[in-house]
């Protein structure tokens, strides 16, 4: 069946809607953010040429095209049974991903540090261009590697600027860490990609999950284990309520993104790791976590620019065919958190099924918990805004200035709509 969207439902200027459920005496039962404006595309992808699916998805999203680009290409590689790529391909892809993270986070800093916001946006874009993606939609990666190395001229240009960018990210982080938060602690787990040491890695090949109390639920599972790790309580819905299968629906709720990344393990770069410690001690919020991850990105880019593999070496390895029935999972930790592309190969090179699980969908349960706590304590709309800003759904309201989010709150009684 063909799915069609009405534009008004996707671009409605007042589409940021919260639904509060109250019982017969008016007490808050629950609150949630309505994700109807973020339609699932999974069903549309079935029957498309498998090799073209990542390209298609990134052009539908447009907001985080680099994350979709890399997750999709990784999924294709998994479908073909490819386990590893060359050091050069890894380095170039990482430059694209880190540049995209800085470029994505930068506009959020406009209110607190305009100079830093502008500089990070430009530098992030320059890193993406250097990695081979000059347009809005990245073309850096191909199944098996990347199209080209970073030229020495582009590398030298970035190298001349990266120290200043790192200093700006540190300045922003120090400002953010000075602020305290009063938001409730999430009762679910934190999930992020990690390196072989268990530390957060935005292009990690392992996934780690820890409880709110710090116990390890998943220490380092590979993408091939995805179907045994996470399931959707409401498959196919815009808000599917994914859960960790080891704990089951509800109990297995989890969040992803910078907050989760800082809670699953120690960062690998020295300045960011020091700031991470401060953030943990201060019970830091998402804005602080984003700022720390920007420092990590800048430090990582500085290291990359000293890596000879970035500008020389084999760019790709051969990739085999997609066997009908094969399942491939590709993931990245994007600016908002874990993004998963799960493809099932069909006949004649066409896709049999797809699952695109976004950070916003995975964080919906966290946002609902924040909104429920806020709605229970008060009807202050600014409190609702704080909750939305913390969980950071992929909607422009997340970036709105204080008081400007334009949230619509619908109250629903347990017997029916008021």
């Amino acid at each position: 069946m063909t799915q069609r969207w009405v534009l008004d439902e996707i671009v409605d200027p007042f589409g940021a809607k919260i639904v509060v459920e109250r019982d017969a005496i008016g007490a808050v039962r629950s609150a949630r953010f309505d994700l109807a404006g973020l339609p699932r595309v999974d069903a549309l992808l079935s029957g498309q040429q498998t090799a073209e699916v990542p390209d298609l998805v990134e052009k539908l999203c447009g907001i985080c095209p680099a994350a979709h680009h890399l997750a999709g290409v990784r999924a294709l590689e998994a479908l073909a049974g490819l386990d590893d790529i060359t050091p050069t391909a890894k380095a170039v892809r990482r430059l694209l991903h880190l540049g995209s993270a800085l470029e994505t986070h930068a506009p959020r800093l406009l209110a607190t540090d305009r100079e830093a916001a502008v500089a990070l946006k430009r530098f992030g874009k320059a890193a993406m261009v250097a990695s081979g993606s000059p347009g809005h939609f990245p073309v850096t990666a191909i199944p098996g590697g990347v199209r080209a190395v970073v030229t020495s001229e582009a590398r030298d240009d970035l190298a001349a600027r990266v120290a200043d960018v790192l200093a700006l990210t540190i300045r922003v982080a120090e400002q953010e860490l000075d602020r305290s938060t009063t938001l409730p602690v999430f009762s679910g787990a934190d999930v992020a990609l990690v390196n072989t040491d268990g530390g957060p890695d935005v292009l990690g090949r392992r996934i780690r999950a820890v409880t709110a109390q710090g116990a390890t639920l998943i220490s380092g599972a590979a993408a091939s284990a995805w179907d045994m790790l996470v399931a959707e309580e409401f498959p196919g819905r815009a808000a599917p309520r994914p859960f960790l299968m080891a704990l089951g629906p509800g109990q297995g709720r989890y969040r992803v993104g910078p907050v989760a990344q800082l809670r699953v393990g120690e960062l690998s770069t020295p300045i960011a790791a020091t700031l991470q410690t401060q953030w943990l001690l201060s019970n830091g919020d998402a804005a602080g976590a984003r700022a720390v991850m920007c420092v990590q990105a800048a430090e990582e880019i500085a290291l990359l620019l000293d890596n000879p593999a970035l500008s020389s070496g084999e760019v790709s390895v051969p990739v085999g065919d997609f066997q009908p029935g094969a399942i491939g999972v590709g993931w990245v930790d994007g600016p908002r958190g874990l993004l998963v592309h799960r493809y099932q190969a069909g006949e004649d090179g066409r896709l049999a099924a797809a699952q695109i699980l976004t950070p916003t969908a995975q964080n919906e349960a966290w946002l609902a918990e924040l909104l429920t706590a806020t709605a229970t304590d008060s009807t202050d709309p600014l409190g609702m805004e704080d909750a939305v800003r913390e969980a950071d759904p992929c909607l422009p309201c997340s970036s709105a200035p204080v008081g400007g989010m334009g949230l619509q709150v619908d109250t629903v009684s347990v017997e029916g709509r008021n």
Partner: protein
Amino acid sequence: MCVGIPAKITAITPGLLPMAQIDLNGELIEARLAYFPDAQVGDFVLVQNGFVMDVLDEQSAAESLAAFAALGVLADTEQPASSTS
């Protein structure tokens, strides 16, 4: 999933909170330019929930619109439709 549909700015109302009139698949809508105050008439942009979220080069906009066309997902506004799968 967030959906970014390329659209073309046809007019801009300047001011403290500049607004753009935007042609989105033949429908004229209003969007806030808070994040891209330097956008110009004729620019292709991505709009979500009433805000311009990004400015695209013309080729990227054409590629994205081709993807939407290939899937045939954008309904005429008068057609009944479901927004979720």
